[in-house]
């Protein structure tokens, strides 16, 4: 990806809302390179700055400092209607007084295509999202999923270099959301353009993205592939935000050794010096039940999921521990067990 020319370059962008002492810094010196035809996701909790970054790229907000480039050309001084990007809004923002076809044709008319060309391209865009049969309807006559498709068609019709998507699936129910995720991914492959996708749903981000930028407090904490973010989170926040994870507090007891607060001493590679407070993180599926394991625990609850069983355990100091186990040979509720924590499955963060 690094060899391809960048579709979008964000250089040291900062943005505050409000003035003086009341100013809130929403983005702090954010830099990111997004490759051509990449499915790039900005992921984080609400208020992390992800939507503001998207709105800066679209041109709905002015940046305080830094620069934004598309294919090497600076665009941050241009109004939204001169930027080669289109947006799919969280609320869809379909024009209620226009039909589906008129909505999709809107940008094409602005670009002064001939009437025949406008009709042809709008028709193509509607076919792409399988909404051709609804061309004459008003947006209010469509379901949420159909409005979502029309919003996509409207943004794709002018064939932008970059499509910006602001939590486009958040208003849909779970089943429809899963379907639309697959469709989005296919559409992106078909259209062959860069997608910048904003979401607070980590599962959605893992499913869809080529790369994810995890944001918090106006900064990008980690920028990597979904796999690397899940398996090698660089921050305690990232580890906690993405998927299920056990976070165990403890103290470095010596080289390669951590004494957890529950009393168990485990092997874990820590950069911190002896005596430093640390947090050890391990995914529920990476720990295993094993005789003579380093971490004693008591089984408190079991949830059968079909493909696996989630065991809720309690450590000696009362801290909870989640374990994803195969469904065969399960211990009973109340049984005392020991867990093996493979050192390569552990991440150690400064506390």
């Amino acid at each position: 990806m690094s060899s391809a020319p960048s579709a979008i370059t964000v250089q040291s962008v900062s943005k505050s809302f409000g003035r003086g002492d009341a100013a809130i810094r929403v983005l702090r010196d954010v830099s990111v390179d997004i490759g051509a035809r990449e499915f790039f996701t900005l992921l984080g909790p609400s208020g992390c700055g992800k939507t503001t970054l998207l709105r800066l790229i679209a041109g709905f907000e002015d940046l305080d400092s830094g620069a934004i480039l598309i294919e090497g050309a600076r665009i941050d001084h241009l109004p939204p209607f001169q930027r080669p990007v289109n947006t799919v809004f969280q609320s869809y923002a379909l024009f209620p007084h226009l039909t589906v076809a008129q909505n999709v044709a809107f940008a094409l008319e602005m670009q002064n295509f001939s009437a025949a060309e406008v009709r042809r391209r709008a028709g193509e865009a509607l076919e792409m999202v399988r909404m051709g049969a609804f061309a004459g309807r008003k947006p209010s006559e469509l379901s949420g999923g159909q409005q979502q498709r029309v919003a996509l068609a409207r943004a794709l019709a002018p064939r932008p270099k970059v499509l910006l998507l602001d939590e486009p699936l958040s208003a849909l129910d779970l089943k429809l959301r899963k379907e639309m995720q697959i469709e989005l991914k296919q559409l992106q492959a078909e259209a062959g353009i860069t997608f910048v996708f904003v979401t607070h749903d980590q599962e959605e981000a893992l499913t869809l993205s080529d790369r994810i930028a995890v944001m918090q407090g106006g900064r990008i904490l980690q920028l990597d592939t979904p796999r690397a973010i899940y398996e090698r989170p660089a921050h305690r926040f990232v580890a906690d935000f993405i998927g299920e994870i056990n976070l165990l507090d403890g103290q470095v007891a010596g080289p390669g050794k951590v004494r957890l607060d529950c009393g168990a001493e485990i092997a874990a590679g820590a950069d911190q010096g002896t005596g430093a407070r640390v947090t050890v993180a391990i995914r529920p599926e990476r720990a295993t039940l094993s005789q003579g394991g380093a971490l004693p625990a008591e089984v408190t609850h079991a949830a059968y999921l079909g493909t696996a069983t989630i065991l809720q355990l309690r450590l000696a100091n009362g801290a909870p521990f989640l374990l994803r186990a195969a469904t065969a040979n399960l211990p009973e509720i109340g049984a005392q067990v020991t867990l093996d924590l493979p050192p390569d499955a552990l991440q150690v963060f400064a506390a």
Partner: protein
Amino acid sequence: MNLRRLPLTREISLAVLVYLYVPVVVLIVYSFNANRTATVWSETSLDWYRKILVNPSIRDATWNSLVLATAAGIGATLLALAAALGMKSGFRGKGAVEAVLNAPLILPEVVVAVATLMLFVAIGIDMGLAAMIPAHIAFCIPFAYLPIKARLQGMNPSLEEAAQDLYANRFVTFRRVTLPLLWPGIMAGFTLAFVTSLDDFLTSFFLSGPGSTTLPVYIFSAIRAGITPEINAISTIMLIVSVALVVTSFLLGKMRR
């Protein structure tokens, strides 16, 4: 709880309706009375309507009222639209500006009318329609402003962003998206301003000059000579025109939703 089950609900509602509308109903009924004395019923007749149609002073007053209400409605609606659009952005003193815009709703009209009269006399403006139009525009602004503002507040702000995102510049965004979406509010605002101007007596009375008598001013001067069935007929027509306008505007607004 079902309100209809409460004791006396029906009786109280009827009493309030009677209280509100009996005078109007009496006025309408007596406009069809053949008797010269307005309060004594003899037989049904359309004579008074025929008479007011051929009465030149009533025709002139009607014309003046319509010209004034149209000019005041258009002027107030344009200013109110500009104000509502301007008030969309936050700025210092926004609350104060809003209060000033809506002041005509609260200020005693007689005071404003006298003040306007004194100002116009002081700067040498002749009384008449030309003086009445700007004065009517001023007090009609809040009636036009409130429905437009309500419509604007109910509008998803992403719609204008979406238009700009789809390559429409600010002017085209206004013409193709903002204006059509505000249209029901603009129509409602115009109707309210129009009806308010049509109905106004005080300001018109103070500022009217020779040949600029409006219907309410005419009715007032005619009534000093005694209540005649003619007055009933004029009032009935004014009532019907006002109600018809408001209902039409309401239905149009509903249709466009």
